[in-house]
């Protein structure tokens, strides 16, 4: 058993709309430990993206508690949440979300800028990370000059910049072909195995979910009872 990274207790979220309160998460209890490799699956509207946003400290709960490394996030203000995202979390998005005007090197170095790392150290670490994801020769390229698979590798490198404890990937292979998808998933497996980073992947691709040791199935804003172990 590893150290506890994430604990959700009775987590609920509802949005206030004109038509009244719209519930999206219902009393979700979830514990993730360091070294976990989890797939969150479920149909559209099942609340998996909201769960992801909550785990990523991008959205707050309506009720219940979310503890990240033992710290109650409900008590934190915007800047404190930004700090948590910066230090302990890494995001990989479906649409890559790189900054188009900046070089790959600057993209990867950006989280370190907000962490207050010196320019020299930023650039050195960014080079290492690009090497780690197999793109060391492309540091000065722009995101528009490389393929989708390469962009997603850059995004992974950026997510790793401040040595996060938790890597959150929202449909990371959604815009990639199956071959490239396999490469990205292989990268996640490797990071999980070699560095013990907790990886959470939101997907509705069964093959992608198949890589993960644990699966959290969402249905109507609740965690469905777990099927028996890894397939």
């Amino acid at each position, binding site marked *: 058993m590893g150290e506890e990274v994430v604990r959700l207790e009775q987590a609920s979220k509802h949005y206030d709309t004109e038509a009244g309160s719209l519930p999206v998460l219902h009393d979700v209890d979830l514990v993730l430990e360091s070294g976990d490799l989890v797939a969150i699956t479920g149909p559209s509207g099942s609340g998996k993206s909201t769960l992801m946003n909550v785990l990523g400290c991008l959205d707050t709960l309506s009720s219940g508690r979310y503890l990240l490394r033992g710290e109650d996030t409900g008590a934190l203000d915007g800047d404190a949440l930004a700090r948590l995202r910066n230090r302990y979390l890494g995001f990989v998005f479906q649409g890559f979300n790189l900054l188009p*005007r900046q070089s790959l090197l600057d993209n990867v170095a950006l989280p370190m800028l907000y962490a207050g790392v010196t*320019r020299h150290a930023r650039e050195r670490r960014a080079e290492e990370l690009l090497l780690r994801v197999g793109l060391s020769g492309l540091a000065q390229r722009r995101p528009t000059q490389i393929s989708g698979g390469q962009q997603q590798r850059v995004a992974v490198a950026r997510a790793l910049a401040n040595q996060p404890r938790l890597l959150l990937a929202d449909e990371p292979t959604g815009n990639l072909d199956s071959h490239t998808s396999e490469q990205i998933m292989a990268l996640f497996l490797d990071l999980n195995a070699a560095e013990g980073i907790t990886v959470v992947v939101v997907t509705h691709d069964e093959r992608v979910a198949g890589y993960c040791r644990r699966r959290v199935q969402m249905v109507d804003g609740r965690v469905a009872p777990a099927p028996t172990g890894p397939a």
Partner: protein
Amino acid sequence: MLGALLQEAFRAMAANRLRTFLTMLGMVIGVGAVVLMLAVGEGAQFIVRQAIDSMGSNLIMVVSGSATTGGLRLGAGNVPSLTTGDAQAIGELPSVTGVAPVQPGSTQVMSGTNNWNTTVSGITPSFLEVRNWPVAQGSAFGDAEVRAVARVALVGRTVAQLLFGDDDPIGRTLRIRDSPYLILGVLSAKGQSLEGRDQDDTVLVPITTAQRKLFGVPFPGTVRYVLVQARSPALLLRAQNAVTQLLRERHRLPEASPSDFTVRNLTAIAEAQAEATRVMSIMLGAIACVSLLVGGIGIMNIMLVSVSERTREIGIRLAIGARERDILMQFLLEAVTMSVAGCLLGVALGVGSAAALAAGAKLTVIITGPAIGLAFGVALVVGIFFGYYPARKASRLRPIEALRQQ
């Protein structure tokens, strides 16, 4: 951090060069206008100050009376109501330090083959003190020459230059109305008067000489005007009243009749003009500042557009750990960079057009450090002021909503 943010600001500005340039243009024109207007205003003030300094301080001018003969009203100075005796009496007033009776006339002066029409004024030696007008070369004439009705003269710079060129005029002879005058000295340069007259285009002779030999006067001892110097600026008004009262008594004027002379407070007139010039230059600067304001609004406009265009970028930055103040600083710095860059170009434009105006229109323009500093300061404040709202708007975006934007 600041370096990286600056680099980011330049990158954002470079991404849309035409837009950046057009946005900055408002600032460029505004700052250029401020610099130019301040330079013009400063130049105008300089000229007025110089003219005031050259006039002499705390001066009152008493001009002899006007006359009405058979319905024809003649201007001031046409009736010989003032005399050297009046001047002496004025000199004894406690509020007065100096008094200088003057009998001017316009005539042709000659030396060798050169001639020139200029103002020849009969004066006493006190005139040079009252007007604060020292002799630059040679020496002035004294009371002895005045008593002796001597044919001696002091020449102004312009006259000396026109009649003698580079030669030394001292000891040479000047012919005025066919009589020879010995040149004793050359007056120091005074420059333009407030009305724009060349004060150095003049010849000074003893007042007795002017009265008796050169122009002739209707009655012995009359003068056209008397310059009176008050003891201090505070005593100007008192001196003015004392002079009026004294002269009315001396001229035996009944209560009801108007004065046969005019008293003018030259210093007050000059200061009013200086004040008018100052107000004018402040107004010019203020009008120019309005264009800075318009430039600032242009920057705000574009920054608002930029923020909404880059909502997704802001979302990404927030997701990877940017704090509110990081986003605020980034956009604020972009606005300030734009306005400072615009300001630099504007200063160049202002200095350039001021130089062109000085060369082309022969206008006195003075560009001062504080004027450029002011333009810079205002531009910086405008950049921060108009950049703050869009930057704050950007920093207040919520990460999930910003990320959702396509």
